[in-house]
């Protein structure tokens, strides 16, 4: 299993990367844990790979103005093991630890995952629940977008051609917030059949759901029910309502809907137990 030929560049500056990306059939390599297998199967055949791993400033986690700025090329392992994130945005660290396997977490990056918008990826559930933002660089500028606006559909994001996702910004969790990510995994691939990220603070809850439908989403109705009733079961039961659920050989749409409610309840209960 061999990919088609392509040109490879490992730019040393963001500007260089943006310039390379502007030329036609180029694709960002941000870890490659999804892209490289697809290229090897010849499902994907970009003309050029622009490897961001040598661009300075795209890795690492820094705290600034009540928010945590995570470079796009920060690996899942770095997120999972970051003392800062474990203390100040534990949901993201917990979710990162549920991704794939250790080798994938060593190479895969948060920016790569966010930009890929795989409907069964783990991160999006958490990024929605913490109300993350993403920064997108383009030639001569940068914009910041709420992750919920960034994520448009199955494998579809607001990234414009020539743009690069440079970072993820998550708020520092206030004291007393409780979080949990609960995932039923597909045993072969490790992807989520359904994953639910819950974040509770002062009686209000945010719920991010992945795997259930064509894209990860905030379970707004369920959040509202919880805010009004404080009833975990009622809120959880609302998570799959009205959702066009995915169906494949591993789980039917009905089963996914059911599991989404079960895992939502588990995530909510776990988050509540950690909240104060």
């Amino acid at each position, binding site marked *: 299993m061999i990919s088609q030929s392509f040109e*490879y560049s490992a730019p040393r500056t963001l500007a260089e990367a943006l310039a390379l990306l502007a030329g036609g059939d180029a694709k960002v390599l941000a870890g*490659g844990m999804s892209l*490289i*297998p697809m290229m090897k199967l010849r499902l994907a055949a970009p003309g050029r790979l622009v490897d961001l791993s040598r661009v300075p400033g795209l890795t690492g986690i820094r705290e600034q103005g009540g928010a945590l700025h995570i470079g796009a090329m920060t690996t899942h392992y770095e997120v999972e093991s970051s003392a800062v994130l474990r203390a100040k945005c534990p949901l993201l660290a917990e979710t990162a630890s549920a991704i794939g396997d250790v080798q994938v977490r060593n190479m895969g990056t948060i920016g790569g995952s966010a930009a890929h918008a795989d409907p069964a990826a783990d991160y999006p559930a958490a990024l929605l629940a913490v109300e993350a933002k993403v920064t997108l660089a383009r030639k001569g500028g940068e914009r910041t977008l709420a992750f919920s606006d960034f994520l448009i559909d199955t494998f579809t994001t607001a990234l414009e051609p020539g743009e690069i996702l440079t970072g993820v910004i998550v708020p520092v969790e206030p004291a007393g917030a409780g979080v949990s990510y609960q995932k039923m995994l597909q045993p072969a691939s490790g992807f989520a059949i359904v994953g639910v990220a819950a974040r509770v603070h002062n009686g209000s809850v945010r719920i991010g759901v992945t795997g259930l439908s064509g894209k990860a989403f905030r379970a707004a109705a369920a959040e509202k029910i919880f805010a009004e009733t404080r009833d975990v079961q009622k809120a959880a039961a609302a998570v799959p309502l009205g959702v066009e659920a995915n169906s494949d050989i591993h789980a039917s749409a009905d089963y996914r809907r059911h599991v989404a409610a079960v895992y939502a309840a588990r995530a909510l209960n776990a988050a509540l137990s950690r909240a104060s």
Partner: protein
Amino acid sequence: MKQTITVTINGKAYSHEVEPRLLLIHYLREVLGLTGPHVGCETSICGACTVAVDGRAVKSCTMFAVQADGRQVVTIEGLAADGALHPVQQAFWEQHGLQCGFCTPGMIMTSRQLLERNPSPTEAEIRHGLEGNLCRCTGYQHIVNAVKAAAQAGK
């Protein structure tokens, strides 16, 4: 277009012109003759190709050789370079942590990383830590024993 890369492998620097699409696993196996890491799948699931790149266990079938330019790679061949087996290798031998041996180089490389990060893992932590490495022969139990034994030996 071919590109020149320089990679330090098992402590020795190599420089080659390679096609960008050349996978790291093929670079190691076919250009350098380091056939310890194996290819067991093409979807980054089985982990038979696991090597360490800059100290991180990675699947060398899911990485192009050009990505390793300027980096340090350690393969299974580099573990017992001075003739003495690495404690993880020794433990796999003592505990019968292998049968056909095909997954073993990758399994050992991942186990080594696991113990570097967590010197006293529980059984559950070992099993979770080896999710990226498939073995079809052993049923994993003797592998778990081997990792425990290596942890013990490391104390």
